[in-house]
């Protein structure tokens, strides 16, 4: 039983508050459960100290559909709920793609596809170089975003570098034109430990996102029914 259902319902309300659309912005629904599990159960982050060196780092690589992230950041106290009222408006801080210089809790400014995973690899390397053994670097990518070749450079090097503190969360809403499956064989062939879950199964997401090895990065592939964005 998910004891946070009430709070999650509140997040849905906040998404609607930002978009002015009770149906939600399409590109937020596919990531909302995974983002909620991250912020409610997995990430060690503190809104009172968003720059805590011992925090986990989360990079929303695709940058698209950030309303779910904004709503969760508001629900968790990183940003005021009133910020949602100026979503995408001039003078506001919450754009259609997130800006790390404007939003506490946003680690990387993203939007152009295929940038976040390599940044997350660099963060994971830096955490290791600093001797920080607890914090993790977690990066959300979309299945269509994985069309970008730059991602595959990062997919290649992360196992080579032995980044056990790195997790890639693939939210697969089947929006890619080329078929990206089979994920397990493809990412596994590069040396990732691949966990496939139902993208709306919050308990399964939690198990996958908590998974960690010493030298092997983890890929959690969250399957979302086609048509959800």
């Amino acid at each position, binding site marked *: 039983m998910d004891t946070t259902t009430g709070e999650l319902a509140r997040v849905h309300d906040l998404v609607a508050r930002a978009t002015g659309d009770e149906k939600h912005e399409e590109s937020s629904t596919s990531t909302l459960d995974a983002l909620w599990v991250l912020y409610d159960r997995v990430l060690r982050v503190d809104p009172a100290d968003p720059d805590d060196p011992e925090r986990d*780092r989360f990079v929303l690589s695709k940058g698209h559909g950030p309303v779910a992230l904004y709503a969760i950041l508001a629900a968790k106290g990183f940003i005021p709920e009133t910020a949602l009222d100026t979503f995408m408006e001039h003078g506001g801080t919450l754009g259609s793609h997130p800006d*790390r*210089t404007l939003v506490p809790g946003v*680690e*990387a*400014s993203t939007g*152009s596809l*295929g*940038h976040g*995973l*390599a*940044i*997350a*690899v*660099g*963060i*994971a*390397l*830096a*955490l*290791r*170089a*600093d001797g920080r053994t607890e914090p993790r*670097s977690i990066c959300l990518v979309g299945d269509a975003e994985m069309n970008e*070749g*730059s991602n595959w*450079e*990062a997919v*290649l*090097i992360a196992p*080579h*570098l032995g980044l056990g503190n790195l997790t890639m969360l693939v939210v697969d809403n089947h929006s890619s034109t080329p078929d990206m499956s089979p994920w397990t064989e493809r990412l596994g062939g590069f040396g990732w430990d691949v966990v496939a879950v139902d993208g709306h199964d919050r308990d399964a997401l939690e198990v996958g996102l908590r998974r960690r090895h010493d030298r092997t990065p983890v890929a959690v592939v969250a399957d979302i029914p086609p048509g959800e964005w």
Partner: protein
Amino acid sequence: MDGMRAAFARTASDLLDEDPRVALVLAEISVDGYLSRAVERHPARAVNIGIAEQAMVGVAAGFAMEGFHPIAHSIGAFVAERPYEQLKLDIGYQGLGGTFVGVGGSYDYAAEGATHHAPADAQVMTAIPRMQVFAPGHAREVDVLLRATYADEDPTYLRLAAATNPEPFDVAPGRLEVVARGAGPTVVAFGPMLWPTLRACAGLDVTICYATSLRPFDGPGLAAVVGDDPVVIAVEPWYEGTAAAPITSALAHVPARFAWIGVPRAFVHAYGTREDLDRDAGLDPAAIGRRIAEVVD
């Protein structure tokens, strides 16, 4: 080229030893023969990620986000152009620093052909807000400029060239050096173009300035030496006219004439040596001298 490249490798290795916040990200180039020992000595902060230049810049950004001073390096074309969007967004837009070092200016890799040429490097780098651009003219200046800027808040593109001036100058980031004073036009030579410029100007009554900084450019320094009726000739190691923006901006308050002597804006479909391609481009001392004399007359 090895003079500047070797100097870069020495300084980068020393900085890894001296400053625990320095990180080095390589994409195979200059590992063998230059930086393999540094990678072995600092495995946590010095990584060779293979031939993956987009990831090289992204990884450098990740290091910078965690408070490191990343130095990333490959051949100029594969630093300044192939991962251009990563430099623009992962570094520039994020508000991060870092040093991006390209070896092989313009057509230094002459025999390799235009796939390995980078005459646009300085111009595309200056299109990224906050990006500093330095063109040392001597191996010693590589060390000075790298040490002076590697920890800057703003990112830096450092252009290493095969051509080198015979003696280093006492350079500093953003400072124009006045090499000679004359009554005629002011010639501004960038980086390794100083030596051919000095030879080209022998016997001419001109002022000669030496710039290793394209951005920040020493506009006040130039304005102070050009006189009341300025005629400025830039001798550039990259595409001709790359320095037009900072030089014309520096003299916007006075009527002035300008000439740009640099790499012609055309793809090179020829091989040979750098000196061969210098002659084709009109950048050997004799040709530079003829072009300067035309302006002087």
